[in-house]
């Protein structure tokens, strides 16, 4: 039994994800109350170089061809063994397409509780999770002796999890990884034929509040007048009203324009992950309690259907 905090590093196609650095930053905060060290866990194949800028006291590296890219079985089997051997105080996974695939199953298998959606840790080592679309925070003691955690971005800066000093790397032997039920066939690159919304100076972004497909025209008109692009949050894209290439959020693009005009977007954490670094967020939402107003520079509860035609007209006149 140790007081160490393990961080399961996530990487895709040879790049460590930003979420991994955020987790390391969180682990440093947590290790202060636990009294242990921060131990990064890197699974991969010929990927030891990915450890070089991780801010950790130590990196445990497991190399195996089946670990080259993330897949369910290979990661789960490897981590089950590793967590048992290390018996740490906590294991931090990303609340992401990688971490969420394995954290809950390992919790059931190892009989260690898992805390979801943790955003920050208090100085006493309590977790603070962000739930209900960012509207509610839940705080509690970290379960003992070992807690698994899935961590959302937003609580710590990625830079705080990076270091110019390469950490020491300890090689751990991979377990037998035969007879895997899940395999990666191929990656499909994002469609690049459309406007690249990550390069726009301003975005007019629509959310669920736009209500129907016909209303998208109101946003298109404004964007055309401003000479910028329209983007959207997940529900709008899932409805097929706006193409996936314009999706902003966790599984979409990460944008940071000068002005992000959010129309009828509530500001759920999955969306904020993709636009929280925008210079000026301007939010239009009739729900005064929408979390978007907590991160916006300017906001209004005026109904967008009253506002948009007037605004578009004024933009045209101002040009």
């Amino acid at each position, binding site marked *: 039994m140790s007081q160490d905090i393990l961080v399961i590093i996530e990487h895709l196609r040879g790049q460590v*994800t930003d979420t991994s650095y955020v987790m390391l930053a969180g682990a440093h905060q947590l290790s202060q109350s636990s009294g242990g060290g921060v131990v990064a866990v890197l699974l991969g194949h010929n990927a030891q170089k990915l450890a070089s800028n991780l801010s950790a006291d130590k990196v445990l590296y497991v190399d195996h061809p089946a670990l080259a*890219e993330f897949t369910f079985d290979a990661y789960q089997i490897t981590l089950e063994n590793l967590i048992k051997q290390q018996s740490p105080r906590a294991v931090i996974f990303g609340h992401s397409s990688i971490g*969420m*695939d394995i*954290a*809950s*199953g390992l*919790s*059931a298998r190892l009989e260690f509780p*898992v*805390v*979801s*959606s943790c955003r920050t840790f208090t100085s006493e080592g*309590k977790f603070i999770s962000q*739930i*209900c679309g960012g*509207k*509610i*925070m839940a*705080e*509690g*003691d970290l*379960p003992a002796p070992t807690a698994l955690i*899935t961590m959302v971005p937003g609580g710590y800066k990625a830079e705080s999890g990076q270091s110019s000093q390469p950490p020491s790397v300890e090689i751990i032997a991979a377990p037998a990884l035969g007879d895997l*039920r*899940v*395999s*990666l*066939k191929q*990656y499909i690159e*994002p469609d690049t034929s459309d406007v690249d919304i990550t390069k726009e*100076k*301003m975005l007019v972004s629509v959310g669920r509040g736009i209500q129907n497909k016909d209303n998208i025209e109101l946003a298109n008109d404004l964007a055309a007048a*401003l000479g910028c692009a329209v983007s959207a949050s*997940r*529900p709008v894209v*899932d409805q097929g009203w706006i193409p996936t*290439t314009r999706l902003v959020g*966790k*599984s*979409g693009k990460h944008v940071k324009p*000068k*002005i992000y005009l959010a129309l009828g977007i509530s500001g*759920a954490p999955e969306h904020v992950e993709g636009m929280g670094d925008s210079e000026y967020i301007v*939010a239009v939402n009739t729900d005064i*309690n929408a979390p978007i*107003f*907590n991160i*916006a*520079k300017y*906001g*209004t509860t*005026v109904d967008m259907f*009253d*506002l948009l035609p*007037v*605004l578009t007209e*004024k*933009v045209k006149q*101002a040009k």
Partner: protein
Amino acid sequence: MKIAVPVKFVPDLVEELTIDPGGTALDTTWLRLIISEFDDHAVEQAILVKEKNGGQVCVIMAEADGADDFLFTAAAKGADQLIKLTGDFSNVNNHALARAHAEVLKDLHPDLILTGVQAHNDLDGSIGPLLAEYLGMPYVGYVAGITIDGDKVIARKEYAGGLIAEIEVKLPAVLGIQAAEQPPRYVAYSKIRQVMSTAKIEEKPGSALSLEESIVVSRMFLPEVAERATMLEGSPDDVAAKLIAIFKEQGTL
């Protein structure tokens, strides 16, 4: 192809959420529950797979206000079998809920289990990977698109930045659905009424509802905000004028 879809209700985020006087949980007095959005997509995806490949869809949920209506709606959309778990689920966490679902699913022998990749009130993991572990099946989450290929399924898994991974999974398997290939279909109330007179909801007792792995919340609160937005007040005309000034100041106009 037998497809099972375990679903759950969550608080409706359109309503104002308040904390109960104890300060550790949501006040449930006026809390309105609706289907978890991702679960709604899982039902749609199951019906799409059935329409393309044939088979049966079974939708399962724990009893709650509105559960019957949801199950009948699923039947009107194309679900063949409806199961309601009975018991006191008021304080049940995801581990216990997944165990209760797993007990019923064991007897159903599904080839494929589709469920929402997460629910917005998950605090102790998500149902899909827990089910996979309890049933000894593989799991892939963040799935938006499925192709059945004999005894395998090709799942399109989403990563950040719009990257998609095509993952091959041996059946039986559990997939966590991020989005169905088309939006959940609308079904007319008249059709639901029609189904209500013919479809049957099977009731099965929920078992193993213990709370061993509970995450104990000592304080629940609304987000503390460093700096809330400066609110622009007035008529649409006034607000538009203020926005124009901001756009100009920032050089985007």
